[in-house]
């Protein structure tokens, strides 16, 4: 009984994705109609300048956001696991976990209000005219990714025996040397996984990007979202396959890096 439901559940999860992938190679103008094998929609994609522009923006935003998330989130996870007692630690923990549970519309709206305020302040105080766009999307996505990286790093360091670091210190290593030779190498797998997670979160986001970007910041998911509102086209089908392959490859790399660590349910 349970096995049958598992099979049906997997079918429910995978059938739409596999059908999408299959029909992306159909020549028919109507999506999900078989009109013979063809790569024409991939070719159309290769000539679509708007899609390429959006994809390029998305990839650079995701790279920047994931890298910032890794730096700030790695430090945050380390501070929560190894920072000892410091002033405001409960608040720090609360804020680091907040992006994990905040509804995305709430996070998007609140960040936009901040960026508008910052724009206003920069203009009155410094005379700078700042635009919202790639930069603000990077900050928003990095803040979301930071929370995920911090959780991964904190969990990793919580499992690391503190006596390893104490032994190194007892043997005369300076705190910086202890960090660089013991703690940091232990953090690397969770940092790599966190980077990829932040990267894929950024590549999938519509709501945060829509709120915080200006007219010049149309990322790929935002572009697909607005075209899906008009209806599905075979080009979107083909684009889905491209995204699918990219993201599953990234997840595969993460799984490979983390193999045998932590993910074992039994």
């Amino acid at each position, binding site marked *: 009984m*349970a*096995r049958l*439901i*598992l099979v049906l*559940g*997997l079918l*429910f*999860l*995978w059938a*739409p*994705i596999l*059908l*999408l992938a299959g029909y992306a190679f159909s020549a028919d103008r109507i*999506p*999900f109609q078989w009109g013979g094998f063809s790569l024409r929609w991939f070719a159309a994609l290769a000539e679509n300048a708007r899609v390429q522009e959006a994809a390029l923006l998305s990839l650079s935003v995701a790279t920047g956001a994931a890298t910032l998330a890794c730096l700030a989130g790695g*430090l945050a996870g*380390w*501070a929560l696991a190894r*920072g000892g007692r410091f002033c405001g630690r409960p*608040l*720090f923990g609360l*804020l*680091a976990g907040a992006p994990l*549970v*905040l*509804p*995305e*519309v*709430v996070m998007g*709206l*609140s*960040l936009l*209000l*901040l960026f*508008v*305020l910052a724009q206003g302040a920069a203009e009155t105080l410094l005379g700078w005219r700042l635009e919202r766009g790639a930069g603000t999307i990077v*900050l*928003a996505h990095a*803040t979301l990714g*930071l929370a995920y990286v*911090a959780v991964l790093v904190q969990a990793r360091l919580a499992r690391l025996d503190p006596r390893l670091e104490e032994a190194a210190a007892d043997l005369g290593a300076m705190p*910086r040397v202890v960090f660089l030779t013991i703690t940091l190498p232990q953090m690397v797998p969770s940092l790599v996984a966190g980077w990829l997670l932040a990267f894929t979160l950024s590549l*999938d986001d*519509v709501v945060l990007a829509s*709120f915080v970007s200006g007219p010049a910041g149309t990322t790929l*998911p935002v572009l*697909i*979202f607005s075209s*899906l509102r008009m209806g*599905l086209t075979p080009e*979107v*089908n083909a*684009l*889905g396959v491209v*995204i*699918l392959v990219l993201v*599953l490859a*990234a997840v595969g790399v993460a799984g490979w890096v983390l193999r045998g660590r932590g993910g074992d*349910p*039994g």
Partner: protein
Amino acid sequence: MRAALVAAPFLWLLALVLAPALLLGWIAFGSAAEGVPPVAPPLAWQAGALSWQGSLESFALLLEDPHYAGALLRSLLVAAGTAALALLLAYPMAFAIAEARPRWRLPLLALVLAPVWTGLMPRLGAWIGLLRDEGWINGVLLRLGLIEAPLTLLFSDIALYAGMLHSYLPYAVLPLAIALSRRDRLLEAAAADLGAAPARVFLSVTLPLSLPAAAAAFLLVFIPAAGEFVIPELLGPPGDPLLGRVIWAEFFQSRDWPLAAALALTLLAVLALPIRAYQRLGQG
């Protein structure tokens, strides 16, 4: 050095999580105005002095206009419905994974989780292609002669729940699969030794012990589903008032920032209890 390393992420969080949240509360007490940005803050410099111009207008409107209470209720209903459906489907799936041979558990779990990373937009595109009037499902049903005219599936509750379930089901399976795989099977063996039938063993030993994981699974779906925007927008009934969509519409279409902020605060206040409950489950 240590202080600086702690301070850097702390400052980030203060600037990009705490400050925006406070600003949300601040703007909710402002009033909509002409201009860029289209909002008059509650405190302003006027004639060399700070003057209070704040208003409770937005909150009063939320209480007065039944549209907003209805949106809140409908959001909670859809979130609870999605979470309940996900739990109903996820429990047996997780149980089957836990009962599989140990070397099969991780690949099976990966197979359940992988769709999360196939991209939300392509997945929603797939559902549109399946559910449209000229879509794949209607095509198959027509060819089989089961129906004579296409069914209206897209932009209905069916499409909404299908899309929500498709996105959130993996999140419900994960905590249950971990908890059920790690459960102490000796307790079940003991119950069976004492004469309990398999159904009785499940109902009085296995099920009660997995309730915390089931609660975590429910909340892990309920919390994000309550504020969901993209899925109802693309698949659900047109104009269906869900809080995520209402906040979006007040912000982007009506350009009433204070009202959108007040709605966002309402959503946060309603979710505070489930979020707290979820975090306690995680610690326990």
